[in-house]
């Protein structure tokens, strides 16, 4: 049987080799040396557990020889296996040398038998698995599933205290300070200008104008906004006076300034 497989395979392989100009081709249809061994083992027509590994090794070596004589290039795996089986064969044939280290021929043969049995077991299991009733072929899922709709609801709440404070806020505005501007959070351009005139002498290198914000004005958004606007306006004023140069590399990029030396003016 192995011979048959081999005969048909080698024809294909030769054609393939010629066509592809490949030096090495896998023997078509075989899934590696272990697979070849498994197929060869079937000619022994015995339980895999009782297989003669010695006989199998001989069969495999014959297979490789024949491939060589037909000038079929075998993949390296096959040749490595052939070499190893030749070694195993010699181990099995010669009486064990007690001085020699390492596993005995029988141990090696037993492991190979185990590997073959395991591969065969996995193949049988794969077949059983694929033969099971299968989803989409033998049994079916719901054809008309209803999706779970996700509803996100926002519920707004307020307490009576919120309400009264809100009202108080409006009424207070009227009662006590109808036109008073709250200046706590306002930094004026005049203040910024005064601050910057003191600092500008040290600005030899390009510096982000944000570094000129007064201390304590950088965290609160309102104060930062006001201070930034004032500082920017003051910088423009200083530029107009020829005291500084301003640059910005792109939209929203940091705005930088440096002192303009009078001699360049």
């Amino acid at each position, binding site marked *: 049987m192995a011979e048959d497989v081999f005969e048909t395979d080698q024809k294909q392989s030769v054609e393939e080799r010629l066509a592809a100009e490949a030096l090495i081709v896998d023997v078509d249809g075989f899934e590696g040396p272990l697979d070849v061994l498994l197929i060869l083992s079937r000619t022994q027509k015995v339980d895999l557990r009782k297989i003669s590994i010695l006989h199998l090794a001989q069969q495999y070596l014959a297979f490789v020889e024949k491939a060589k004589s037909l000038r079929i290039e075998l993949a390296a795996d096959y040749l490595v296996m052939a070499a190893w089986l030749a070694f195993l064969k010699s181990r099995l044939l010669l009486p064990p040398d007690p001085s020699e280290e390492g596993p005995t021929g029988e141990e090696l043969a037993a492991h190979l038998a185990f590997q073959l049995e395991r591969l065969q077991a996995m193949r049988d299991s794969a077949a059983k698995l694929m033969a099971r009733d299968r989803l989409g072929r033998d049994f*079916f*899922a*719901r*054809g*008309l599933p*209803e*999706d*779970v*709709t*996700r*509803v*996100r*609801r*926002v*519920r*707004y*709440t*307020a*307490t*009576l*205290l*919120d*309400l*009264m*404070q*809100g*009202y*108080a*806020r*409006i*009424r*207070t*505005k009227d*009662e*006590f*300070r109808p036109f008073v501007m*709250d200046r*706590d*959070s306002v930094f004026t351009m005049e203040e910024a200008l005064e601050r910057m005139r003191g600092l500008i002498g040290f600005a030899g290198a390009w510096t982000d104008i944000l570094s000129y914000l007064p201390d304590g004005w950088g965290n609160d*958004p*309102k104060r930062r906004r006001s201070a930034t606007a004032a500082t920017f306006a003051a910088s423009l004023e200083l530029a107009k006076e020829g005291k500084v140069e301003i640059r910005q590399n792109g939209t929203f990029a940091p705005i930088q300034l440096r002192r303009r030396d009078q001699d360049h003016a």
Partner: protein
Amino acid sequence: MPEDIETKEESLFEAPPMAEQERMCEAILFASAEPVSIKDLNARMPHGCDAAEALVHLRKRYEGRGVHLVKVGDAWAFRTAADLGFLMQKETVETRKLSRAAVETLAIIAYHQPVTRAEIEEIRGVSVSRGTIDQLIEMEWIRFGRRKMTPGRPVTFVVTQSFLDHFGLESARDLPGLKELRAAGLLENRPPPGAVPGPMGEDGEDQEDAEGQSELFED
């Protein structure tokens, strides 16, 4: 599998028992991507089957269950029982504080009802966005009152029973007046804009303020 073929071949001569036909209808209707007509059911079931009768039994079997067999046009399908529809949606409720603009508008309506939009704006000193009014109406805290008998006959707003229920008030008249607010300490500290003292906290304020501001630009 061989049994199936036998069943099929037998069925050329004799229809399967009704219980079996019921199972078949059940499976087909379950797996089908759309409602199936009796004609199609009969075409798919072995020769001699009577889908119409099988469906009568099947429908009965699903009575009171979590899914029902329903007729859709001239076809049939399984559908979730109407009373279990709530299981088909995942609801997430997010509680958010009402914006400052909405709180103030609501407060004005509560204290001054019935009040027109123009009056609200006059009291608040800023325009009131349509969104704010709509939101309060949707929450069922305010509703339209009678039109004012002034030129243009503007609509007025009043608070609702839900409003009173929510805030634990018998009537809007129970809302504390200015004097009481002051006595309660609510008017004593002049609240600078953006930093209301007390339980409202300071963290929420910035974004509330932004909202209040955006209201100005919204419409």
